[in-house]
């Protein structure tokens, strides 16, 4: 169906593709293994003779048997049924900074694919230099922090890393038993609550004031005590609201004896504008797969780049990449190290891409990234608030993104955000990020129009939402019955939570539902 004049006619690919385990015929081969030379075979004999009898596999795993072109075709079809960022105006997925990942950086990242992390330091000077400089030059200027680790494999992993460091800090000071509480805010990412909890802390969560959308300083003062181990917050929060009293917050927590960790997942529009160190934080982390352009990879591999003050550098996970005597080294000498949160140095190919991106920008370019992002966001706001049914809870100006509400639309039409989310994909845009839980803002959605998107992109995206909202008033059933132009029809979610019917593997599916369905 054709939308309003401005909207394009779109239909997602529909391959009706079977599960890979339904494909192929016995005997087909996708790939041949490297040769085992005859001399080796003769010399060592049957491989089975070297495996203890009770440990030999008796029946082969029931993997599919497919030729190479058929495997490739299957996965290319699945890829076509995935709306990657590069195919659409992907600004609906807020808090995730869906920016362009330059192609040249993929080429460069490929240059370290055959490097082993335990090679002699002299043979990995190139990648160590890049890791070191990305931290000690770029992130130091951006955050004001002194030393950096790239070991955590994502943002949550970095929050967890920081929670472990705070634990270790209080343990070294003999205070961990008493200092067992971490304070966070409900509009900070859930990892800022979950990761300290996994590291052994109790959480105190602050809720926003009705008018401001931020918790008050008084609420924080009431929350701190001799039990306070630290503070974990995002700023701007997931609402896009920047806490202007953040330096007062860190001061209050410091006076109570706690440390402050800054989740900089939402840093894109404040690069070169305001710094973690100047707001009084002891540590922070950046999601390199968000702000620094490394591709999201369908959800990793990413990198949570951790920055700390000099005082906390002894607690960093090992090894830390350092520069001394004209060479780069892997430094394991950190007296209070938390040890490791991930193997080796981390996802250094992600750091390499981020370095290349930052080197293409420079100071002026990074500042431009921030400024254009804040302009894009405020421009989009003008467009969206003109659409019937869309409201913006809390009055204030926003930085990188805004958490809007479709509560009015739902009350007036019965069409809520979940319906809208199924309908927008009919126009070739990615479904929206709603909100983390709980939904403090009812029927939420959170677009983040970062610097990648042109004015025309933003206009189109807003036009899609206008069309769907207008449709909700005119023909609500059309929206509720969506999607109409997608890969798949309406999905039944009931089996997902039912032990009798859920199936995380094909073998479980066959067991529960009987044999193959087609």
């Amino acid at each position, binding site marked *: 169906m054709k939308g309003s004049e401005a909207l394009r006619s779109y239909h997602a690919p529909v391959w009706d593709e079977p599960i890979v385990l339904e494909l192929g015929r016995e005997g087909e081969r996708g*790939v041949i293994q490297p040769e085992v030379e005859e001399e080796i075979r003769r010399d060592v004999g049957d491989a089975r003779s070297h495996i203890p009898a009770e440990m030999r596999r008796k029946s082969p795993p029931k993997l599919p048997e497919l030729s190479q072109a058929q495997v490739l075709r299957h996965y290319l079809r699945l890829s076509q049924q995935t709306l990657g960022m590069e195919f659409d105006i992907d600004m609906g997925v807020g808090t995730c900074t869906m920016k362009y990942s330059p192609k040249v950086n993929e080429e460069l990242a490929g240059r370290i694919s055959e490097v082993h992390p335990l090679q002699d330091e002299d043979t990995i*000077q190139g990648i160590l230099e890049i890791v070191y400089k990305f931290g000690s030059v770029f992130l130091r200027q951006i955050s004001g922090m002194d030393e950096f680790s790239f070991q955590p494999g994502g943002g949550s992993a970095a929050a967890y890393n920081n929670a472990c460091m705070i634990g270790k800090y209080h343990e070294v000071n003999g205070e961990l038993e008493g200092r067992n509480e971490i304070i966070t805010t409900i509009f900070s990412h859930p990892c800022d609550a979950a*990761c300290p909890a996994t590291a052994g802390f109790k959480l105190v969560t602050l809720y926003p004031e009705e008018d401001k959308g931020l918790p008050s300083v008084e609420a924080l003062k009431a929350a701190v005590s001799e039990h306070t181990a630290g503070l974990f917050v995002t700023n701007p929060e997931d609402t896009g609201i920047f806490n202007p009293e953040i330096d007062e917050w860190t001061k209050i927590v410091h006076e109570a004896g706690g440390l402050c960790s800054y989740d900089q997942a939402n840093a894109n529009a404040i690069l070169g504008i305001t710094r973690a160190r100047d707001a009084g934080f002891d540590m922070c982390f950046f999601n390199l797969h968000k702000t620094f352009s490394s591709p999201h990879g369908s959800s990793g591999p990413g990198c949570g780049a951790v920055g700390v003050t000099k005082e906390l550098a002894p607690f960093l996970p090992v090894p830390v990449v350092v520069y001394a005597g004209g060479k780069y080294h892997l430094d394991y000498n950190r007296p209070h190290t938390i040890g490791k949160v991930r193997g080796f140095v981390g996802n250094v190919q992600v750091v390499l891409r981020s370095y290349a991106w930052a080197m293409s920008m420079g100071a002026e370019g990074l500042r431009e990234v921030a400024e254009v992002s804040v302009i894009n966001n405020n421009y989009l706001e003008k467009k969206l608030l003109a659409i019937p049914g869309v409201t913006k809870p809390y009055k204030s100006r926003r930085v990188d993104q805004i958490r809007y509400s479709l509560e009015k639309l739902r009350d007036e039409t019965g069409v809520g955000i979940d319906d809208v989310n199924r309908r927008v994909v009919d126009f070739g845009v990615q479904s929206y990020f709603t909100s983390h*839980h709980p939904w403090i803002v009812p029927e939420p959605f959170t677009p983040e129009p970062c610097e990648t998107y042109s004015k025309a992109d933003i206009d189109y995206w807003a036009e899609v939402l206008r069309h769907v909202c207008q449709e909700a008033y005119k023909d609500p059933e059309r929206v509720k019955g969506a999607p109409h132009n997608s890969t798949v029809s309406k999905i039944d979610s009931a089996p997902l939570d039912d032990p009798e019917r859920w199936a*995380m593997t094909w073998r479980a599916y066959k067991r529960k539902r009987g044999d193959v369905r087609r």
Partner: protein
Amino acid sequence: MSDRKFVHPYIPNSVPGVKAEMLKEIGVHDAEELYAEMIPERLRLRGSMDLPRPFPAEHDLKKHVEAVLSKNVTCGEYLSFLGAGCWQHFVPAVCDEVARRSEFLTAYAGGAYSDLGRFQAFFEFQSLMGELVGMDVSGQPTYDWGSSAGNAIRMAARMTGRGEVLVPRIISPDRLSIIENFCQPSSTPGHIDIRFLGFDPETGTIDIEDLKDKASSKTAAVYFENPSYIGVVENNGEEISEIAHENGAESIVGVDPISLGVLRPPAEYGADIVCGEVQPLGMHMHCGGGLGGFIASRDEERYVGEYPLRLISVTDTSREGEYGFGQCRFDRTSYIGRDQAKDYVGTATALWAIVAAVYLSLMGPKGMKEVGEAIVQKSHYAAKRLSEIDGVEVPFSGFFKEFPVNFNGTEKTVSAINKSLLKRRIFGGKDLTLEFPVLGRSALYCVTEVHSKEDIERLSKALKEAVK
């Protein structure tokens, strides 16, 4: 500052005229005016960041980065026998092709209506891993083997309400350190006590008597690996699991899945939870960036309910015969439960799950059997050649892919030997001397299907000279 004439190819609205139009619509003069409304002056960074001159031209950038990277040596240029948690295996070109696909590479958090293919690929990853390890449930990948072991141990602790885990003394120190963090500091309420199991000096396998002594009603789980950190195949898996079960504990087995075409699936020797590393299944080493972990278990509510990970389930749709996909019991995860959730979950290594699914589909049952056999034959051939060198000993038999090589019979330290090999463009095995003094002057050698007979002869010859 928005009057600057800086136009960057990655920033369409850096065009001054466009920016001016947008600012006019917003009703402000420049970005500065917006920031001034939100961020107090005292928190503002004034002046420019002190950064190197950029390379906005792609050609110049590439030249610059390539010049820096040229200081690296790769395992394609030198001959490598390094493993110890990251291994050099054959990566089929189709794996790289799919890994580079724009759709998978740049997708992130969309739903099944826009990203059905991604959800199906994850379900297939879970399904293929399930076939390999013999389990009915698996989830989205974790960061690496260490974090999957840490998550599995915490699952077991919650399931049993107990606070002690038994792990082998011979374990990767990196992995152990990751597990220790997952087990929390001793003064915190959720702390899990780690107790170590000794090993049989003859075989390198777990000392069963020690396990019997230590397993008790306090034990949440017995965690062991196949193959172990030093490559030894643990042949008492069944007995270890039985002892765990007799004490009401869970049996957790960590595996290198590339072994599972020839080694018995852990479910067959009593494992309740299986975890391990997916890097061997089609991922390049990426200087350690190729790691990704997995967890699998029985299909019972008590296991499913404790997973911290996203679990993708197949389901029905409103069209007969069509597959839909969604998240099973998503309220378990920290995205919903915050601090009340089962541990934490976040962006981990989803792209590697897709690549692993491609790898296993290409390999099939025959490919997995052949690669397992090739690794056994080549690594045992290498061990035989090396142990023929005077003063060099391979203490354990019955290993898979990796084996310690002991140099106590020579005058040389491992470090000196490796320096000497390096001069001959060979990366020798990882030095175990400080990690496990009990093994003497040893190095952990890794031989996979990619090593040819010629490579092994070259190592043997170089080592002969190096130990002199």
